[in-house]
């Protein structure tokens, strides 16, 4: 009897070890004890305000590892600086895939940067998961089955603003400032689609800037002179602060719609000052860490405790630290669902099988859902207004998957 138990346990152990070994042999970056994940982020350069996202993800995986890892495997997170420069992203991602041999690439940041590696990842058949960009093109499983976005798309956000304008601003005249790339154009398309036939009449001016420009003052001057009473501000944080300040300095007082991409209190609204930033609208899908209504919320308290323990130098007013935390949690959930099968196919399959997954730092009612034909994990958002100190949510949670 005793012999049989021992033999049985031995067989089980041997089978498990064999299974782990077999999985390890198949997928680069996966061993019995480790899964290697690649990442690029602008730690330097014009978009370096996002650098903290890479740091907070690193901290979260450290926490996951200290708590025993995922299904017994530790996460080895390799993150490189691409300075928001597409050629550098290509170089770094090729290094990750070909030299470092990562299992997959996660939360690479930026629309132009991810566009540069989009085809490469799909040719190499390496999962390109939960990108830190809301361009609509990341949800195209038919043509790019290895790429999946994460946050609500820029087009969805644009449509929400359009609806707000149509319902609340009589005689709206919209002036747009956008970054001249897929990210900016996606936001503009969303707004135009949302406005429908009225778009031609309502949008009175469109101005662009390049991510290498010194200032955007001239564009703001043109927008003011166009007579616009709504300012649709599609800029990354470096230019968002300049745009908000210049708008204030030249005495232009439009209804200011700021894209969620720059809606960080710590990085944008605080530096620019409450006089200039009061009254600005944005959309949100995550709990803003400066909002006192979450003070006693379990999700917020857990996040705060995590920040204090694993990323004490991080800014607890910075929404990007909530962003990275939530993205990393989604990733860990996918790895959990994979069980012991960490082949690249299985990782993609599980990423596309998230069902009503709740993120503790997402707004109440927002759930993560994906499917074989639905590569848009988060599709719900809510409007918020800046009161000089913090974002105040208002209105209903808008669900793009239902419209």
């Amino acid at each position, binding site marked *: 009897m005793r012999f049989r138990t021992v033999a049985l346990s031995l067989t089980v152990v041997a089978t498990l070890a064999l299974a782990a070994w077999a999985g390890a042999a198949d997928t680069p970056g996966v061993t019995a004890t480790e899964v290697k994940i690649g990442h690029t982020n602008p730690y330097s350069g014009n978009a370096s305000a996002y650098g903290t996202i890479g740091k907070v993800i690193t901290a979260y995986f450290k926490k996951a590892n200290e708590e025993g890892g995922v299904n017994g495997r530790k996460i080895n997170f390799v993150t490189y600086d691409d300075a928001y420069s597409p050629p550098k992203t290509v170089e770094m991602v090729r290094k990750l895939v070909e030299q470092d041999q990562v299992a997959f690439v996660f939360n690479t940041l930026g629309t132009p940067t991810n566009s540069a590696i989009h085809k490469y990842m799909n040719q190499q058949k390496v999962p390109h998961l939960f990108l830190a960009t809301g361009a609509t093109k990341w949800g195209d499983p038919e043509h790019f089955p290895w790429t999946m976005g994460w946050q609500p798309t820029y087009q969805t956000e644009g449509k929400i603003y359009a609806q707000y304008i149509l319902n609340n601003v009589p005689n709206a005249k919209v002036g747009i400032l956008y970054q001249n790339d897929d990210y900016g154009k996606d936001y503009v398309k969303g707004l135009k689609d949302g406005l429908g036939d009225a778009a031609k009449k309502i949008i009175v001016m469109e101005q662009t800037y390049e991510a290498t420009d010194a200032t955007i003052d001239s564009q703001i001057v*043109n927008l003011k002179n166009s007579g616009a009473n709504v300012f649709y501000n599609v800029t990354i944080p470096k230019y968002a602060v*300049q745009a908000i300040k210049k708008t204030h300095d030249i005495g232009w007082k439009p209804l200011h719609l700021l894209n969620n991409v720059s809606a960080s209190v710590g990085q944008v609204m605080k530096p620019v000052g409450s006089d200039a930033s009061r009254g600005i609208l944005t959309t949100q899908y995550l709990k803003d860490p400066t909002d006192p209504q979450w003070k006693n919320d379990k999700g917020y308290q857990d996040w705060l405790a995590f920040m204090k323990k694993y990323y004490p130098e991080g800014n607890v007013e910075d929404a990007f630290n909530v962003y990275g935390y939530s993205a990393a949690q989604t990733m860990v959930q996918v790895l959990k669902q994979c069980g012991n099968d960490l082949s690249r196919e299985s990782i993609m399959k599980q990423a596309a099988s998230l069902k009503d997954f709740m993120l503790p730092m997402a707004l109440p009612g927002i759930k993560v859902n994906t499917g074989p034909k639905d590569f848009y994990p988060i599709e719900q958002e809510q409007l918020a207004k800046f009161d000089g100190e913090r974002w105040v949510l208002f209105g209903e949670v808008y669900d793009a998957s239902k419209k």
Partner: protein
Amino acid sequence: MDIFLQQVVSGLATGGIYASLALALVMIYQATDVVNFAQGEMAMFSTYLAWSMLNAGLPYWVAFAATLALAFVGGLLIERIVIRPVENAPVLAVVIVCIGLLVILNSVAGWIYSYIQKPFPSPFPNAPIKLGNVVFGAHDLGAIGITLVVLLFLYVFFRYTTLGLAMRAAAQNPVSSRLCGVRVGWMLAIGWGLAALVGAVAGIMVAPIVFLDPNMMAGILIYAFASATLGGFTSPGGAVVGGLLVGVIENLVGTYVRFIGTELKLTVALAIIVIVLVVKPSGLFGRVVVRRV
């Protein structure tokens, strides 16, 4: 007409930024015959020093003066430690050293102060100034004023002081200067110190507009080069006029020339550099340098 005037005023404001950094570029070229690619990053670093002092509670003008003093010493040290060993090397070697300096200063600033952008206070009132339908910030006007003061200071310094004259001589003809008793090595070091000081003024004036982060000078440096080239690398006054011109041209072309629009604004700066170098290499106000070869 309103939009034309407003774009011109806004162009002068940004042009003032370019002018202040262009002035530092010209300053170091005059004093040492070197085109310093690290000028922007030196200015940025000085601005961070000012920021630290302001954060420590020093009054604005005390921090301002202390920053200029520190920048001067810093520039002096950079020349002694980094540039001196390549003093007699070919121009290209000096350029590479300067670019190395640029990367180092940028990364060190990022390492110490992080890449998060910080607001930087302005010594001028916050309220916008209105002239008819044209509106501009008081800081824009003040920054141009300060640039002009620096220009005046440099003009007087290089034209009427013994030290200034000795510095120009040392830059242009080190051998003869040495024979006349000018301590050429020290002149070059002082030149770097002064250029760093002028750069620090530029940084402190620019930061309230573009916000302080380690990359704040990256875009501006290209425009400053265009300004200095347009005005002439040998003429401080030319650099200021060049800066203001580039600012205005950039805005007007971006607004009125359809196919350029706001997409090719930076290209305009580069085109200015190329056109000036082809048509009039010494710039609008520059002296034609003739060298015996």
